[in-house]
C-alpha cells in the first residue's frame, strides 16, 4: 500500500455493513464476541471509572487549596486518596490502552479476523464489570482508607473500612487482565497474516506483547497476595501480622512484585501508541525499529527486578536496597533507548502537528521528566529525603498521567476515525491537547517543589508556607479537568456530526488502515498478505486531510 490516495476512497456513507451497524439492540452488544465491540464496551466502562477517579482527585485538590483541613476531615481524606488510587490504577490505567485500543487493534494490525478466544474476551469484560461492581459497592457504602497499596498490618488489623470487598474487587479484576493478556499472546503468536514476521510487526503490537507478559506473570501474584490479606483479615490468622510471627515487609515484596511491573503495564502500551503516532506524523520509518521493539521486552523483563525501590525505608536490608537501586537504574536504559529513537525519528521528518501528534510529543517530554525523576527516587540517599513526599506523587503522575494518559488520548484521537468512521474536530482537539499539557504541568510541576521542600503526601492539612504552590496545583487541576472534558464532549459530538472518515485519513501504513472505516465485522474481506516491513512511509508526503 504505497500511498494514501489509492486506498483513500471515501467510506461508503451508507449501504455497506460494518461492525457497528451489522445489528442493533442491547443484546447484540452484551453478547457480542466481536473484539471491536468488546473494545468499545471497555471504553465506556473505563470512562465511567475515570470520571469517578477524577471526581476523587478533584475533591483532594479542593481540600488542599487551603492549609487547614477544612473541607474534609483526615479520615475522609484518607478514603479519598485511597479510592482515587485504586480506581485510577486498577480500573482505569491498567485496562486503559490494552482493553480498549488493544482489543480493537490487535487483530486488525496483524491481519486476523478476531482474537484467538473471542468468548474469553467477552468473559474478561464481564469479570471486569463484576470486579468493578464489588469495588464500587464498597466505595459507596463507606469506602476504604488503606491507601491503594493495602499495606499490612494496617489493612489486616488496623483499618475498620471495607478492605475485603475492595480487595475482592481487585482480585476479580486481575483475572480480566490475565484473560486479556492470554488472548493477546496467543493471538500474536498464532494468528498473524501470511508474511507478517515478528520483525514486521507494528511497534504497538510489540508493546502489547510485552504488556501481556506482565499481565500473565505478574497479575497472579497480586491475586494470591490480596487473597491472603482477605484470609488474614477475615479469619484472624497471621501471615503478614508481626504480632503473630509474620512479616509485613514480605507483603510489600509480593505487592510490588506485581505493582511495580504494573507501572509498565500502564506505560508500555502508551509507548506503543507513541511509536505509531511519531512515525505516521513525521512520515518516516522509526529510527532503529528493532531497538524500539526489543526495548519493550527489555522493559517488561527489567521491570520485574526493581520492585524493592519502593521499600528503601520499609526496613528492608540495606544490601538488598543496594541491589534494587542498581537494577532500577538499569531499567532506564531501554526506556531511554525509546526516547532517543523517537527523537531521532523526528529528525528531518515531514512533521505535521495534528492533535494525536501533539499528545505524542507531550508524552515524550513528560515521560522523560517522569523517568528521570524516577532515577532520583531510585538513588538510595535521595530517596530517604523525598520518600513519601509530593516529589513521589509528582514523579508517578508524570509517568501515569503525563505518560500513560497522554498516550491513551493520542491513540483514541488517532484511531477515532477507524473506530467510529467519523473525524473529530481537529482544531478543537489541538486546543484540548494543549490545555491538557499546560494543565498537567501546572498541576504536577509545583508538586516536585513541594515534595523537595518536604511536604509529605497523604495529609489533608499542611503548613502555610506551602499554600502558594498548592494553589497553583489546584488551579492546574481544574484546567486539566477542562482539558479532559473537551475531548469527551467533542468526541461524542463527532459521532453524529463529525465529517465522515475515509479508510485511511492519515495515510498511515498499518494493516488496520487497509480496511474501511468503520471496519466490517471480520475486519478484512480477504486476509491481507504482508510483503515488506512496517512503516514504509515516503518522506515527501504530508498528512492528508
Amino acid at each position: 500500500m504505497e500511498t494514501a490516495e489509492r486506498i483513500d476512497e471515501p467510506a461508503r456513507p451508507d449501504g455497506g455493513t460494518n461492525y457497528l451497524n451489522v445489528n442493533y439492540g442491547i443484546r447484540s452488544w452484551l453478547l457480542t464476541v466481536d473484539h471491536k465491540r468488546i473494545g468499545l464496551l471497555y471504553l465506556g466502562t473505563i470512562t465511567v471509572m475515570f470520571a469517578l477517579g477524577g471526581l476523587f482527585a478533584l475533591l483532594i485538590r479542593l481540600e488542599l487549596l487551603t492549609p487547614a483541613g477544612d473541607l474534609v476531615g483526615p479520615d475522609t481524606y484518607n478514603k479519598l486518596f485511597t479510592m482515587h488510587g485504586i480506581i485510577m490504577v486498577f480500573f482505569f490505567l491498567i485496562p486503559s490502552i490494552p482493553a480498549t485500543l488493544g482489543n480493537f487493534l490487535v487483530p486488525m494490525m496483524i491481519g486476523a479476523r478476531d482474537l484467538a478466544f473471542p468468548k474469553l474476551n467477552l468473559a474478561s469484560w464481564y469479570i471486569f464489570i463484576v470486579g468493578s461492581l464489588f469495588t464500587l459497592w464498597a466505595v459507596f457504602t463507606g469506602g476504604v482508607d488503606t491507601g491503594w497499596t493495602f499495606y499490612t498490618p494496617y489493612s489486616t488489623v488496623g483499618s475498620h473500612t471495607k478492605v475485603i470487598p475492595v480487595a475482592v474487587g481487585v482480585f476479580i479484576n486481575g483475572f480480566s487482565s490475565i484473560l486479556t493478556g492470554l488472548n493477546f499472546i496467543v493471538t500474536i503468536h498464532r494468528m498473524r497474516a501470511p508474511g507478517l514476521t515478528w520483525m514486521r510487526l507494528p511497534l504497538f503490537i510489540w508493546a502489547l506483547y510485552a504488556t501481556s507478559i506482565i499481565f500473565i506473570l505478574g497479575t497472579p501474584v497480586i491475586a494470591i497476595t490480596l487473597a491472603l490479606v482477605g484470609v488474614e483479615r477475615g479469619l484472624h490468622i497471621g501471615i503478614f501480622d508481626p504480632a503473630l510471627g509474620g512479616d509485613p515487609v514480605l507483603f510489600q515484596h509480593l505487592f510490588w512484585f506485581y505493582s511495580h511491573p504494573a507501572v509498565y503495564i500502564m506505560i508500555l502500551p502508551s509507548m506503543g501508541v507513541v511509536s505509531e503516532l511519531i512515525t505516521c506524523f513525521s512520515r518516516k520509518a522509526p529510527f532503529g525499529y528493532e531497538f524500539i521493539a526489543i526495548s519493550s521486552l527489555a522493559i517488561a523483563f527489567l521491570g520485574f527486578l526493581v520492585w524493592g525501590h519502593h521499600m528503601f525505608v520499609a526496613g528492608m536490608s540495606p544490601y538488598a536496597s543496594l541491589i534494587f537501586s542498581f537494577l532500577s537504574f538499569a531499567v532506564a536504559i531501554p526506556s531511554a533507548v525509546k526516547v532517543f529513537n523517537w527523537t531521532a525519528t523526528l529528525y528531518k521528518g515531514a512533521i505535521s502537528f495534528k492533535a494525536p501528534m501533539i499528545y505524542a510529543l507531550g508524552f515524550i517530554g513528560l515521560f522523560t521528566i517522569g523517568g528521570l525523576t524516577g532515577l532520583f527516587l531510585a538513588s538510595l540517599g535521595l530517596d530517604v529525603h523525598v520518600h513519601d513526599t509530593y516529589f513521589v506523587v509528582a514523579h508517578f503522575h508524570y509517568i501515569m498521567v503525563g505518560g500513560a494518559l497522554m498516550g491513551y488520548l493520542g491513540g483514541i484521537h488517532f484511531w477515532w476515525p477507524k473506530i467510529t468512521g467519523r473525524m473529530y474536530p481537529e482544531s478543537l482537539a489541538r486546543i484540548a491537547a494543549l490545555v491538557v499539557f499546560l494543565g498537567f504541568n501546572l498541576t504536577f510541576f509545583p508538586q516536585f517543589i513541594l515534595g523537595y521542600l518536604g511536604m509529605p503526601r497523604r495529609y489533608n492539612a499542611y503548613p502555610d508556607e506551602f499554600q502558594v504552590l498548592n494553589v497553583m496545583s489546584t488551579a492546574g487541576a481544574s484546567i486539566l479537568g477542562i482539558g479532559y472534558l473537551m475531548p469527551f464532549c467533542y468526541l461524542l459530538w463527532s459521532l453524529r456530526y463529525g465529517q465522515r472518515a475515509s479508510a485511511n485519513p492519515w495515510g498511515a501504513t498499518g494493516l488496520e488502515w487497509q480496511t474501511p472505516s468503520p471496519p466490517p465485522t471480520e475486519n478484512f474481506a480477504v486476509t491481507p498478505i504482508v510483503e515488506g516491513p512496517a512503516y514504509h512511509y515516503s518522506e515527501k508526503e504530508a498528512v492528508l486531510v
Partner: protein
Amino acid sequence: MTRDDHAAASTAHDHVVPLSVYFGIFATLLVLTGVTTAVAFVDLGRMNVFVALTIAVVKASLVLLYFMHLRYTARLTPLMVAIAFFWLAIMIVLTMADFVSRGWFTGLLG
C-alpha cells in the same frame, strides 16, 4: 510462526507417545516418591532439603516432558515454561536477598 508453517508444527504437536513410556514414567515417579520419603528419614544435615527438592524437580520434569508432551512440542512451549519458572526464581531470590542479608548490617557493627 506464521500460518505458513503450521503443518510442520502440527505433526510435532500431535506426537503420540508410546504406552510403554507412560508406564515407565509412572513407575519411575512411584520409585522416586518412595526414595524421597525414605531419604527424609536419613540425617543429611542441610543436604536433606536439597535432596528432597532435587527429586521433586526431577519428578516434575518427567511429568512435564512426557505426560505433558513438552519434549515433543515446538520450541515455544518449553521456552515459555522456562520463563515462568525463571520469573518465580526472580521473585524468590530477590525477596530472599532481603531476608538473608537483614542480619548482616548489625553483625558488622556489633
